[in-house]
């Protein structure tokens, strides 16, 4: 056998390749069985990053379907409520390039909560049915109200309202929400250019 192999290098190469193929194939097959995971972990991870407003602005009926679509190759820039930071997180997770938000699906807005102008509410329950997170309280022919802490600001209740009594109120920027911004690269570049031109004049 050994002699045969040493005499026919072609056979040796062929044998080696086939052998390697068999070994690695077996390894891969074993790994597939051994490390099999239930469900789609990538879709779960993606869903974890999405803002869970369930607003459907991406064109999918909720965050999970969109997460599954992204796992299947859909673009990552269709989520206006998440905005740039969600896109950046997704790009990071999936190791793809971060694209600017697709304007077709809406713009990134300040977080808002729905507010029902209660005197105008006719108690039709249409908004309650539309709310994906059960954040609207009320019953038929009774006044409805929004539980502010539960509202995700998805806008889905605005359209169904027959009397247009729902406003989306942007959340106030106050002391509580203030935070130090990152040092502004634009202003520092401007300052550099200013110092540069000063020096230029002096020189």
């Amino acid at each position: 056998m050994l002699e045969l192999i040493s005499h026919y290098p072609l056979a040796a190469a062929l044998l080696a390749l086939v052998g390697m193929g068999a070994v690695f194939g077996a390894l891969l097959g074993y790994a597939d069985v051994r490390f099999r995971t239930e469900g789609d972990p990538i879709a779960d991870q993606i869903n974890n990053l999405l803002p869970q407003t369930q607003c459907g602005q991406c064109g999918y009926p909720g965050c999970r379907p969109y997460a599954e679509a992204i796992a299947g190759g859909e673009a990552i820039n269709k989520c206006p409520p998440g905005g740039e930071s969600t896109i950046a997180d997704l790009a990071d997770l999936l190791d793809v390039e971060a694209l600017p938000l697709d304007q077709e699906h809406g713009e990134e807005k300040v977080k808002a909560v729905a507010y029902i102008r209660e005197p105008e509410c006719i108690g039709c329950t249409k908004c309650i049915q539309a709310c994906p997170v059960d954040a609207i309280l009320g019953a038929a022919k009774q006044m409805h109200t929004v539980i502010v802490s539960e509202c995700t600001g998805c806008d889905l209740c605005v359209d169904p309202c027959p009397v247009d009594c729902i406003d989306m109120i942007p959340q106030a920027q106050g002391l509580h929400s203030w935070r130090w911004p990152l040092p502004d690269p634009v202003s520092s570049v401007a300052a550099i250019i200013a110092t540069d031109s000063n020096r230029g004049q002096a020189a």
Partner: protein
Amino acid sequence: MRTVFRFHGGIHPSENKQQSLQTPIEFAGIPPELVIPLSQHVGAPASSVVAIGERVLKGQMIAESTGYISLPLHAPTSGTITAIEDRTIPHPSGYKAPCLIIATDGEDEWQTTRCEPNYQDLTPAELVQLLRDAGVAGMGGAGFPTAVKLSINPDVHIETLVINGTECEPYITADDALMRERGAQIIEGARILSYIINPARTLIGVEDNKPEGIASLRYAARDTGIDIVAVPTRYPSGGEKQLIEILTNKQVPSGGLPADIGVMCQNLGTTVAIHDAVIKGRPLISRITTVTGRSLDQPQNFEVLLGTPLRFLLSRAGYQGSTNNKLIIGGPMMGFTVPNADVPVVKTCNCLLAPTENELPSPPPAKACIRCGQCAEVCPASLLPQQLFWFAQGNEHEKLERHNLFDCIECGSCSWVCPSHIPLVQYYRAAKADIVLHRENHLKSEHARGRFEFRQARIAREVHEKQTRREARRQAALAHNNDSGSITSPSTDPVQAAIARAKARKAGQQKPRSEPESS
């Protein structure tokens, strides 16, 4: 002589403390108008209990606490409430927030208050309540309510009470002045604290650049067992964690409290406030504020009524507005700038700094980080500031957390030493805020997802139930037609059971007419 230990890093910025120590503490006077922000420090804002137009007396409670971590406010002098409106408050944001405005009447008329010179007659819990009612907050840093700090878990025994008199920030001499002039009150305050928490030992840490203060305290503390420890002058020795390490050679666990290692730390100014509250029955309505900087003719320490506008204080110290480049509340290392001089003094304002451009120049544009590592050498938390800067630029939250960003105490040593003038602390603050925001958003989205999934499940269940009901009705109708009466095999399946119940009900309502169903 007690051994002192050392902490990692630290810097030696020019002290500039002599300027404001030339004269003794002086009462700043009663300004025509006091502006009292309802939110003066960490915790929930107080809620006003007075009406516009109401006359208030000095020491009268004008706003009550609204939660556990919240304190009441008292009128610093007598006068009339003229408005409750938004004014600019001393906060790095420069935002406006609700304030009580008092037009003072100059009579300084006291309300009768409760004092307890024989405080040993009270239980520690009663004393803590007294301090809470007097609105006493930490006078050094974030102004954490003293009563909350003192309400520790009864299982935890405090071995060491540390009074922080290091005052390591340049320019500030408020505690130094207190030590020189009110040593006895400090010691009395420390003894009240020690009565409340009953530690094995009480240490007062003072940087060795205050020999007069140390001598005065040692004199006042003779025969009390309170130890005055001179610690080497090195910024930031006054950081709570750093001082604890200097005095006990123990490190506060990350994310934990000093109480975890049997230590409690209180600011030296707070001991005076405690003394005033307990012995004199005087709530926290004034404080010592150092007013200094080269834009002032007479830098000095003032006893200031809370709510006094900075403008009033500055004019008392001979302010030269034309030479001033910024107004800083706090010291040059950790203080923040305020947009105008109408901002009032609050419980935490230990210093008002009005420097000239020459004195504290505006930062030049940052150059590239050359990884010189000087920031890591001076970092008192042994962090790697240049790595954190790198990650903060790239918004790499995970790496920032793994490199212990949240152990940064924002002392500013790294920015001070950086030869490239990079505003490192601002990067860390922004990154911390960003991470916290991310966490909050994530919690919110998790919550929303939970509710969404619950709703989905509920809708599915409702649909299912509707179907089963419909099915049951159909079955019942069938049974009705077939005149079925009894059920032969009672099923454990709830659906089946529901069907069975429905059938039974139907059967009960209407007389069975048909033969048994073969199920």
